[in-house]
């Protein structure tokens, strides 16, 4: 080393330390490098820009909008702005004063004109059942109201004399509300603002959420149990045979979901093929046919079948990469076939197991069509209730809150999964 530095031109080392290096044309090297890289970066950004835009428009914006909707509900304050303003002054102890009633009467006239009272009526009705007709009739009669408005309104309908209704209205007048999330976990605020459980007969959502998680867990377990041997077979057979079998695995992918589900109805219903065969074989009595569909059993069977490829494919892709010499090595070292399989083969398939489990579970938790068709009463999942609120009750905020809870649940599970298995070990086919 000493000899090398002896032969070095004096000063070279010092120049490198003192002045920044320059490129051949005299610009500082650092700047030149940034210029060269900027062009490459710009080109790369332009290439992915369409996809980025697509993801933004179709994915991030809708989900963000939905999540906002679950706690932002401005109908009341938009339709009844004067009432909203007046209610801010009300302390909530007794009935509101004349000013609030006057503002409300004015708003009602506008609302009648704009035909928007129905929206407010629906909104308040979520929290104060039976109030809907009071709003619509009050709006109808609004042109006839004269001061003092308090007496006039109470004369029109006793309900306007209830402090509780006004308390509910004050809460509804606030655009940002936790109300829908509370409702999604079977809770509500009473008239005094305390969080309480809803009535027993209306407690459904926690039960549905737990049932969804339970059914998704059972379906995931079954998919793994059934998928593992199939994937093992596919990975160990010669390519020709395994390609043929792979088509059988993929066939369900190429058939309409509805057709597959309907096929299960034909098989499982009480006058269906399986029951007919069992009766014909004298295994069961004609009047004690098995109820295998329109309940949880139906949901589990049909969904396991539909989601099975999602557990087979990642398992297969991992198993394909495990050379048979590992098993042979284990055998030659004295392990029985079972020990070799359990101690050497299975641990190496963990990334595939993890990917399959995660895929199937997440898909199952959010499944809609199959439980809707074959689930009956107790085979419904949380998605069916989200759909109910989207399509029937039109309580989109409630649907959004349920969706938000589903999203949060999945993210918690994903986090747990990452803790236990490690997401970097995942192999999704």
């Amino acid at each position, binding site marked *: 080393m000493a000899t090398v530095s002896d032969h070095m031109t004096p000063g070279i080392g010092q120049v490198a330390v003192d002045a920044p290096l320059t490129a051949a044309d005299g610009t500082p090297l650092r700047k030149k490098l940034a210029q060269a890289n900027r062009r490459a970066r710009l080109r790369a950004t332009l290439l992915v820009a369409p996809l980025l835009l697509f993801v933004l428009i179709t994915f991030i914006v809708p989900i963000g909008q939905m999540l906002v909707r679950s706690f932002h509900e401005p109908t009341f304050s938009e339709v009844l702005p004067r009432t909203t303003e007046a209610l801010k002054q009300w302390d909530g102890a007794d009935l509101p004063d004349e000013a609030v009633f006057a503002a409300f009467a004015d708003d009602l006239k506008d609302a009648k004109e704009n035909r928007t009272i129905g929206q407010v009526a629906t909104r308040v009705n979520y929290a104060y059942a039976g109030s809907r007709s009071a709003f619509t009739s009050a709006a109808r009669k609004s042109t006839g109201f004269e001061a003092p408005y308090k007496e006039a309104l109470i004369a029109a309908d006793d309900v306007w004399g209830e402090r509780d209704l006004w308390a509910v209205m004050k809460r509804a007048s606030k655009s940002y509300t936790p109300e829908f999330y509370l409702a999604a976990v079977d809770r509500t605020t009473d008239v005094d603002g305390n969080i309480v459980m809803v009535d027993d007969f209306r407690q459904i959502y926690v039960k549905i959420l737990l049932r969804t998680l339970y059914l998704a867990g059972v379906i995931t377990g079954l998919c793994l149990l059934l998928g593992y041997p199939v994937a093992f077979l596919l990975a160990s057979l010669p390519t020709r045979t395994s390609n043929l079998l792979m088509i059988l695995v993929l066939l369900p992918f190429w058939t309409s979901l509805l057709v597959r589900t309907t096929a299960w109805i034909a098989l499982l219903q009480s006058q269906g093929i399986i029951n007919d065969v069992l009766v014909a074989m004298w295994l069961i009595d004609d009047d004690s046919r098995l109820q295998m569909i329109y309940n949880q059993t139906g949901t589990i069977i049909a969904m396991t079948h539909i989601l099975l490829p999602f557990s087979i494919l990642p398992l297969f892709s991992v198993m394909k990469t495990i*050379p048979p*010499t*590992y098993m*042979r*090595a*284990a*055998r*030659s*070292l*004295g*392990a*029985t*076939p079972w*020990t*070799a399989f359990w*101690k*050497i083969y299975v*641990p*190496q398939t*963990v990334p595939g197991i993890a990917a399959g489990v995660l895929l199937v579970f997440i898909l199952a938790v959010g499944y809609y069509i199959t439980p809707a068709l074959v689930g009956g009463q107790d085979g419904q999942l949380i998605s069916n209730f989200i759909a109910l609120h989207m399509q029937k009750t039109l309580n989109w905020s409630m649907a959004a809150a349920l969706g938000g809870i589903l999203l949060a649940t999945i993210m918690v599970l994903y986090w747990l999964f990452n803790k236990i298995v490690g997401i970097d070990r995942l192999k999704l086919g």
Partner: protein
Amino acid sequence: MTVKMVSFNLRGVMNEGNATRRESPDGHVRFVDVQKSYDGETLVVKNLNLDIARGEFLTMLGPSGSGKTTCLMMLAGFETATHGDILLDGKPINNVPPHKRGIGMVFQNYALFPHMTVAENLAFPLQVRKLGKADVEAKVKRALEMVELPQMGARRPAQLSGGQQQRVAVARALVFEPDLVLMDEPLGALDKQLREQMQYEIKHIHENLGVTVVYVTHDQAEALTMSDRIAVFNDGIIQQLSTPDVLYEKPENSFVAQFIGENNRLNGKVTAVSDGDCRVVLEDGREVNALSVNVGGAGSQTTLSIRPERIEIDPASTLPNMLDGKIAELIYLGDHVRTRLEVAGHDDFVVKLPNTQSRRPLHDGQPVKVGWRTEDCRALDPFGG
């Protein structure tokens, strides 16, 4: 590199000298009339008979598809013989599953379990044998010391270099103290220098432990370096089974002569056989004398085999066989000059000239005389026919 002597308390007898062992093999492994077919139409292994003595290092050498690996897999228990018996210590093992044979094996790509550390890999064969924890730890430690990797126990196989993985694989095959170890081209994935170093290490481990090793390779240099005996396989048949020196110097057929080392071939026809020698007329009509090894009577075709280092160019004294030739190419290789000549109608006649002081300058196109002794020229079966 030296290999530490580590006592493994093997039942096997330590190296007791090659001569006695080869003359009276106590038959550690025996193949008796073994045949193997995969498709029921062709035989991959044709009627194999082979005795392997206790403590011997036997190499199965041959080109790919010659049946050598199949033999090894049958011995390990991963393939079943279609016909015949394989005996281990005199007992047939055809129906014994691999895990009950107690044979150590080193695989081509090591097959170290990637989800286990090096120490766990080594402990695996001991744990499946239900050894106590302290015992396992002691044996793993000793095995790591034997292959000079005492600090690597906590690493994963992927964190080791190729040579280190190779050593761990060897240690794992030996840690449960088998008296028979099979190696299936274990050095194939290493670079040349490391491969040569590992050859010596494996050879020394074998000498120290006295285990029987059956080694499969297609690399003849590797086989010559390591083995007590080499079985040259081709086409499902053992072509010749002998010590490295005999195989090189006294090949019994043209395949062995061609496969082991470099070899000049001259085709011709036998005109007379007498007293171990024969006269052969070459394709261009010249006659030469050769050692009659594997030829029929007069009139049969033969291939003459002469090693390149046994040929002299412009010999000082008259040799029994002298032919005219012309230098076609000279390649300087440091310790010797590889000279390609045109002789008797062949232009691939190679002579190795040692780079000594007495070397005379040669140039391309120069006409020379080549000569060799009769005993260096072996008349074998016609090559490729």
